[in-house]
Structures are given as C-alpha cells and as structure tokens.
C-alpha cells in the first residue's frame, strides 16, 4: 500500500480516474460508444482522437525536458509544417492524389526536422539556454509560416489529406493510431535502446555524464530533433482537421499545454528521470478536462480560469510537499498526548 502511494504514476492516474468518474456522474453517456457507418463514436473516442497533436508534441517535450531543456517552438513548428504541406497541395495540379499528399506530408515533416536540428544546434553546440534558443523559433516560426502561406489562410480540398485527421481504420480514428504509434515508437526507442537512460544521465548530471564518456551533445541535439519531427506531424494532423493552414491558430499555446502534460505526468522540469506513460496520462487529463469544460457549457471567456483552477487542484494533489504537510498534521494530532506528559515530567523533576 505504501509503495502504491509512492509510485510516481499513482497520483496522475488517480487524477485522470477522478475526472472520468466526475464526467460519468455528470453525464452517464460519457462512457457510451456507438457505431455509425463503420465508425466508433463516443466522448472517449473523441478525446483520444483530438488529443493526437498534443500527445505528439508532449512526447517530444518529455525528451527535451529530460535533458534539462525546454522547447517553446513546438507550436510554431506545427504552424510551419501545416503551412508547408497545405501550400504544396494547394499549388499542385492534383490536390486529391495520394502522391501529392505523400510528398506534402514528407516535405512538411522534413522542414520540421530541419527546425529541430536548428534548435538542437543552438542548445547543444552553441550552448544557448534552451528557453532562449527555442524562443527564437517560437517568435520567428509563425512569421515563416505566414510567409509560406502568403499571409492568407490557405485552404484546400484533398480527401486523402483530410483522412489523416478525420479518417477511420477499423472503426477507430486514424489520428488515434498515429498517436499510439508515436507513443510506442518513442517508448521502444528510449527504453529498448540505452537512449533513455543516457538521456536521464545527461539531464541529471551533464558534467559527470561527459566525463563518463557519454556523447551528451548528440543526445541533447537528438532530443530537439525528435521534438521538432513530432511537432511537424502534429502540425499536419492539426491542418487536416480544418483543411486550412492558419499560421496564427495552429498549435497556439500548445507548448504550454505540452509542458503541463509532462509535469502532470510526474517528470520534473529539472531534467533527469522521465516517464513516457506519465506524459500520456498527463495529455489525457488535459484533453478530458477540455472536453468536460465544453460539456459543462462554461463560457469560452471563462474557460481558461476554470481550466487553471482544476490544474492547480491536480498539481496540489501530486505535490510531495502537500503530502508531507498532510502527514505532519496527522502526526501532530497523534503525538499531542505524549508531548504533554513529557512536559509534566520535566516540571516534576
């Protein structure tokens, strides 16, 4: 029992479970699933589908944070990759052809990769503080995206592209499969190789790792590249939802939600030990909360406030200091009596 309380995924899972329970009580249809035209529908499916972009971005963010870094540029990278791929489709002769879409997607992701390389170069080679290094692209990226789209919101009609964000395979949304594939890929990549533990070593103690012969530079650089690529994929899914490349709306504030998801999942912003499973749960908490707010009909102007209140509660539930405080209050009550007796003895002496 004690071990269960100490396990670092216990509290995130508890928070997610609590949200699901509250939702189910408020609207029993929350857990319902219906099949329409070979497609599975229901609030849970929607949450899993809509969480895909945040999931991808948060996975990359987890790796970057594990190296003691942070990647603020993910939202801007999403905007760029979406703008690149939609512009390619818009300018092509056959926007609906599979080949066009394939090229558009690949080029979009490659551009995101280049942006990740740039971030990693600034941080690992030039030694610029991650928050500043990625701030550059956070600010400049959307400008680049606007440049690509010519300042307008590029809209296209391309069924294969739309399928990425809104299509279904075997009753389930494609976006969900992409999201799951990314989780599995990152988890295998980190934990089946030694990359995970070396990343943690670099995040915990960069100098000790360097002296132990770890290629810290490559590992840090690699984390930013992965983050860039995943943000690129997220940008393509996001653009596919509306079939419009909106340089300002794409991935707006997603960097902050991704950081939040990582922290909710129990990975420290100080770097080091990270948890992929924790981040997945963190993302699901955020997405479920978002859906709850929508359902409760909170006016959109008050949505951030409501969101913030719930997040504060979730973070407090997870805080070890709050746990310690609770324990010490408990102990103080339990110990009250013996302390009094000791004082009596002293008086008697």
């Amino acid at each position, binding site marked *: 029992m004690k071990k269960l309380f100490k396990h670092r995924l216990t509290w995130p899972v508890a928070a997610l479970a609590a949200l699901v329970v509250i939702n189910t009580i408020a609207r029993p249809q929350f857990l319902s699933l219906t099949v329409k035209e070979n497609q599975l529908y229901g609030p849970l499916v929607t949450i899993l589908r809509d969480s895909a972009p945040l999931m991808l971005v948060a996975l990359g963010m987890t790796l970057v944070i594990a190296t003691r870094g942070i990647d603020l540029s993910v939202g801007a990278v999403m905007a760029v990759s979406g703008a690149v791929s939609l512009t390619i489709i818009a300018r092509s002769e056959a926007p609906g052809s599979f080949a066009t879409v394939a090229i558009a997607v690949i080029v979009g992701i490659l551009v995101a990769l280049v942006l990740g390389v740039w971030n990693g170069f600034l941080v690992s080679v030039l030694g610029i503080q991650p928050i500043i290094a990625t701030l550059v692209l956070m600010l400049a990226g959307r400008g680049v995206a606007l440049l690509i789209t010519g300042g307008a919101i590029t809209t296209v009609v391309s069924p294969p592209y739309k399928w990425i964000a809104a299509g279904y395979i075997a009753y389930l949304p494609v976006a969900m499969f992409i999201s799951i594939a990314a989780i599995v890929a990152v988890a295998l990549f980190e934990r*089946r*190789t*030694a*990359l995970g*533990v*070396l990343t*943690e*070593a670099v995040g*915990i*103690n960069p*100098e*000790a*790792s*360097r*002296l*132990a*012969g*770890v*290629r810290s530079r490559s*590992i840090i650089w690699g984390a930013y590249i992965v983050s860039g690529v995943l943000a690129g994929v997220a940008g393509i899914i996001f653009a596919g939802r509306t079939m419009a490349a909106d340089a300002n709306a794409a991935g707006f504030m997603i960097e902050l939600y991704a950081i939040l998801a990582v922290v909710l999942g129990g990975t420290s912003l100080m770097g*080091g*030990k990270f948890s992929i499973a924790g981040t997945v749960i963190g993302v699901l908490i955020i997405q479920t909360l978002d859906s709850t707010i929508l359902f409760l009909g909170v006016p959109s102007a008050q949505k951030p406030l409501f969101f913030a209140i719930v997040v504060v509660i979730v973070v407090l539930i997870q805080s070890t200091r709050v746990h310690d405080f609770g324990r010490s209050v408990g102990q103080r009550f339990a110990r009250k009596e013996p*302390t009094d007796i*000791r*004082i009596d*003895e*002293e008086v008697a*002496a």
Partner: protein
Amino acid sequence: MHTDTAVQPIVDMTGITIRFPGVLALNNVDFSLRPGEVHALMGENGAGKSTLIKALTGVYSIDAGTIFVGGRHEAFATTADAQRAGISTVYQEVNLCPNLSVGENVMLGHEPRTGGRIDWKAAHARASEHLAALGVDVDPRAELSSHSIAIQQLVAIARAMVLDAKVLILDEPTSSLDRSEVERLFGVIRGVKATGVAVLFVSHFLDQVYEISDRITVLRNGNLIGDYPTAELPREQLVSKMIGRELEDLAALARTAERTIDRDSAPVLKAEGLGKRGIVEPADIDVYEGEVVGIAGLLGSGRTELVRLLYGADRADSGTVSVHGALAKIHAPRHAIDHRIAFSSEDRRGEGIVADLTVAENIVLGIQARQGWARRVRPSVHDAVVAEYMEALDVRPANPAMVAGNLSGGNQQKVLLARWLATAPELIILDEPTRGIDVGAKADIQRKVAELAEQGLGVVFISSELEEVLRIAQRVVVMRDRRRIGEFVSQDIDLDGLIDYIANAERGNVA
C-alpha cells in the same frame, strides 16, 4: 547532584534511539557537550554521526531518550527550535546566501533598526565587529560569493555567534580547505571555544581531530563505543574502535611502494610538455604498466588540472600525449576512453555520481557510453557486471536498485571505481579517491588499487594525504603553484622529506 570539579554539560543527550524503516540508526546513545570544549564525533560512514547531529539540530525526531540543552528539557520539532535553543550548525556546503553581502549574511534577521528601517551602515559595522572578534578581516560589503569556501565558513561561524550560539556544530568543515585555511579555521575555533561555546567537530582527518579536539566520542553501527579525553586515546586505538578491527589489518594492506616496475617497454601513457596557459605550466609525466604514479601537492597546486588535461576533460594547448608509444589525440573524455584511460574526478557528487540513477545504472554507465546509445548492454551482461563489481568492491548496502545519491561517500567512490573498472581500462586516473570517506572504505579502495596495479593496470593517484601516496605509489611527481617541481622514487624519500620539498624546494631547483 554535580561534583564541583565536573563542569555542567551544556548539551546532555541520554538514551537516544532513532529507528528508520528496517534500521536502528541510533541505539541508546549518550552524548554530552561541555562549554568551552572542542568535541570530536568519530565513526565510519553509517556509524550514526550525522543521525546524532540531526537529532540535536531538530532535523529528526527521536524515538526514545532525552535531550537537555542548558539544563532545559527540549523536544525539537524543527531546526528553528534547535536554533532558538542556541544550537548552530555550519555545514560542509555553506548554507548562506551567496548573492548577499558578507555583512548582510552575518546580520540577517538581526539587523539594527532605526525607526523601523534597517540601518545598513550600523549593520555592516556590527558585522565587521563580529568578524574581527574571530580574527577575520574581510570587507562586510563584498558579495559573499566573491570569497573562497574557507572565508564563507568563517562568515557562517560569525553568523552563528550573532545568533548567540551555545553550541557550534562543524560538520566536515575542512574537507575542501587547504592547509593554511585549516590553520585559520582552527584559530577561529580556538577563539570561539575561549568564549565558552561548545564546539562539535566532525572530520575524517585524524591529524586535525588530534590537533583541535579536547574530547572524542566514538560511534559504531549506531552504538556508543565510548567517550575519551583526546590526550588519553592513542591513534591506533581510536581507529580500531571506529572500525572494530585491529590496526594491523590496515597496516598490512597496500604497501606497494617497493614493488619493482618493468620500464623496458613503452609506457602506457606518456605526456610531454602538457600544459594549458593560465591553468598549468607544461609538465611531463609517464606511467608504465603495473605502476602507480602519485601526484603530491597541495590543493590548487595544479595536480587536478594536470590530470584533467591528460584525460581530455579540459583541452591542453601545448604538449603531446602518447599511449603505448604512439601519439594520441586526446581532446575529449571520449578520446581518452577510446585509448582505455579512465578518470575518477575529485568532485564525486558534481562530476562522478549521477545521483538520481540507481547504483546499477551508475556502474554500467561507463560501458554503455562506450557502446553508444543504440546498443543497450544486454541484461545478462548488465547483471553480471553489476554483481561482480559490487561484490569485488564491497559496495554497501548491496542493493543495485538503490538510488546512488543515497549512498555514503565511500560507497559512491566504490561505485565510481566499479564504473571504470568495468570498462577494463589500461590506465586509471584517481583524483582524491579516498577523500572524506571512512577508514574501512579507504582501506578497501587502497587494497583494490594495489591489487589492480599488480595485475598490470597503470594508475595515476592523487591524494592530499601524502603518507597514503608514499605508501601506494612507486614514483611521486611533486607539484606546486601550477607547476611540476620534481619527481622521486618513493623509496628515496620519506614523509618529512616530501613535505619539506613541497614547502621549500626552490623554483629553479627542478629535478
């Protein structure tokens, strides 16, 4: 109650017992401090020294026993309670505010006020007085971080005096000080003692304990072994009380200085004119197979800087390094590792242990880094390596899943040694491998180094304890003021000779 000859103790702890899950950290321990004495608390790591200190400073609550401070029964719930009772602690890592001025640090919370506003002029003047009373002459307006650790410690002591401390606890205060700084600290301790304050002194340096302390309390495995006037406790007895075995065991081990080394083949490592401007002047050093070469010199003599150049931790701007007679380019630790050179830094926590990883992960880190990230060390190999080296070096507790940061210093050092030995190096550079660790672990490490050298490993061995260097190394390179000033065969020089050479050899008199 008291006889007239006995001074009433300022701190009287009786029957102190503290349990941690599965461990009896302190078992019915009595401990007292008298005003105006310097009392050394001795014991190996894990003996219960820090637990006892934490009981006295309110960090831990006690499970049984009583604590009287100045005749009052105390039950400290927090460290603030202990401070209020007059117990001040100066830790190894000074806990002051580095970005405030010296004076602000000394007076923090006790600033003189005029009409509700802090009178900084008076505060700094007052701080100056307190510092001067300790014989410390520093500008109270200078930022604390601009001073050395030694001065910062003295500032911490001055602050304790402002708090009107009756008990001053100094936990390993000298571990990062050089000889003259230690002298200065001891001067201050004697001054503090003269005012009637009780000083509790914890150190691994026996010389210092005998120099400064009046009384010694020895703990072992959470039990009180006894307390003794320092003058009546010979060194050998102290050591055998601390480790619970006879000193002959220690003396018998690791005296390898007389071993003859075959210097016919090319040296494992040879550096010529290796230097870096402003850091260390060009120096030569060579190590043959199976040889232990000691580097003797004070802290700041350039000994650490020189070996960092050898390993590529810092980049040399002059000189050449050859490995087995062939020129080698070593610009980064990885290059050195490729040439089978290993390096264990003097800064165990900062540059050695990866604190949040487990013991097993720390041990395997060296092999894993060599293999690269793509090929993970196979679980069977992983477990075998970890088990082999944890046993060979007697890492305690023998739990590979334990977080390395929670190990004692000596065991962390063993884990680092294990990390490097697992990579099968041909040369290992050990910078202060035995500093700040207990006698038992020290003996284990010395024994292991001697054994490895006998099997053909080349070793560069740095230690502040010259006696240790002379005992283990066949040759000793002497450094002073960032410069190599000479080299001896260990058998040709004794400890006094070496000290004299370090202190007095003329600059031009390079051997």
